[in-house]
């Protein structure tokens, strides 16, 4: 019998498998628990959280594309206090493993306060820093497209945060490794990439953008090769773990992303077209590992380097 081991170690936490639903595509997880046992997931990256509650952008927030979609949700969330006292409590009832909190913001001060709020939350094992959201004005991506700004922010956060920090990187830059190296030097414990690519669609009847705020973030299988390339480059340049994401839709994609250098992967858009996407990827992963004669998934991390 072919023996497969899907376990990976991420920031000192052992994940049963490397599959993590990406932030913003899985809510706070508990709603998926009525459809299948979500405890099969490696971990969960929770919905992006800000200091205060945010309604987000006006509708329409979604535009379909070939091989994906554009979204401009605008970080709709109930604010960090409610996320900790209500959402994460509900999640803990149905999900017994540690999760990743995801934090967005408009100012350094807001980021520091929100990240620190998770310091004593026991079911959170790391905080993912969203400095690459294209859908919030005067913040978000602005922090992640300049290496000095990104570096300063990470330093300030590391002074106050007790949980490991995963910095989520934007692909909307000239050289993603430059930013990745800067945040590594600033003390980041891991990076995750790629966030969405800034895109637009237009309504042919009105001649206006489909998305209410004009631009949005493009994701889905269309960005997958770009994600692979960036994960490959960044993981080669860095010595901290890289979490790969961008268009992952099937078990083979997980193996390819880890081959490129990812320690774990996040699945995003696929959850939106199939609520069972993560389950199906996990269920089939051992068979695909067997097909490619992979006994231990950890062994293939960065094997392309």
């Amino acid at each position, binding site marked *: 019998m072919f023996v497969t081991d899907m376990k990976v170690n991420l920031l000192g936490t052992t994940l049963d498998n490397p599959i993590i639903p990406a932030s*913003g*595509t*899985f*809510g706070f997880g508990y*709603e*998926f628990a*009525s*459809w299948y046992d979500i405890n099969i997931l490696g971990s969960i990256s929770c*919905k992006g959280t800000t200091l205060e509650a945010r*309604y*987000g952008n006006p*509708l*329409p*927030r*979604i*535009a*379909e*594309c*070939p*091989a*994906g*979609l554009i*979204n401009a*949700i605008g970080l*709709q969330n109930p604010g960090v206090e409610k996320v900790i006292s209500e959402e994460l409590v509900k999640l803990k009832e149905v999900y017994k493993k540690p999760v990743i909190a995801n934090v967005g913001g408009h100012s350094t001060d807001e980021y520091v306060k929100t990240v620190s709020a998770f310091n004593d939350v026991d079911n959170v094992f790391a905080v993912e820093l969203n400095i690459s959201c294209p859908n919030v004005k005067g913040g978000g991506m602005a922090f992640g497209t300049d290496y000095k700004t990104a570096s300063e922010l990470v330093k300030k956060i590391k002074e106050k945060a007790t949980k490991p920090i995963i910095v989520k990187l934007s692909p909307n830059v000239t050289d993603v490794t430059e930013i990745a190296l800067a945040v590594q030097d600033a003390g980041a414990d891991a990076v995750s990439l790629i966030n969405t690519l800034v895109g637009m669609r237009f309504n042919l009847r009105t001649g206006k953008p489909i998305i209410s705020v004009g631009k949005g973030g493009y994701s*889905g*299988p269309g960005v997958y090769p770009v994600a692979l390339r960036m994960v490959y480059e960044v993981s080669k340049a860095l010595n901290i773990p890289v979490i790969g994401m961008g268009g992952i839709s099937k078990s083979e994609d997980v193996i390819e992303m880890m081959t490129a250098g990812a320690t774990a992967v996040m699945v995003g858009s696929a*959850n*939106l*077209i*199939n*609520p*069972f996407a993560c389950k199906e990827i996990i269920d089939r992963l051992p068979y695909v590992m067997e097909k490619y004669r992979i006994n231990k998934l950890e062994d293939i991390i960065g094997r392309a380097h």
Partner: protein
Amino acid sequence: MIKEKVRIVSNNRLSDGVYELVLDGASKVDCGQFIELTIPGFYLNRPFSVADYENGKLTVLYKILGEGTLAMTGLKEGTYLDMINGLGNGFLVDRAEKPLLVGGGIGIAPLYYLAKELVKRGKTPTIVLGYRTKNEVFYLKEFEKLGVTMVATDDGTLGLKGNVLTVIKASEIDFDYYYACGPMVMLNALKEYSTKGEISLEARMGCGFGACMGCSIMTTSGTKRVCKEGPVFDAGEVI
């Protein structure tokens, strides 16, 4: 919510731009809930209201509005489609004693299943349907079998010239609770007339099951998702 494969029994044109798709092998769905279909060649699933359900046969009415619905007109009988069934919350069928059903355009679709359910419960609905023009009219004969049915068209080619409100005001309909689905302009006008009822909303959705927050609206009790807490809302609740 359940993911299932359904077989196309028929896919026929009903009127100008409006089609009827009958699917077999579907699980039971409540009236007012919606389904999503995966259309080959398109990334996102398409949400549709349920126009009828009986013994595994589920009927969807759709209007050609974009590339996806245009492609749907070419779907052949016997083809299998992936479907997500039982999405959202349906109509509160027991709320009305003297129900009024108000539909505009393709929003008429979910009211047919509702009308049948009301009749099953011994209630006779009054039905007001609004179309753009006579050539767009669909399901009128079917509705007429279930209750007194009145029609308005924008251009006056059938029924009263005007909209559903023109008919409601002109006819002094005796009702205690309404169920409505149609364009937002129609629903807003109806809400101004009376809030004693519920409205089924349409939205451009990402996922259709509450994950992406793509269809959040503001209500008197905070943000709600059209796909998850809706698509049917109390008329007075929607801001």
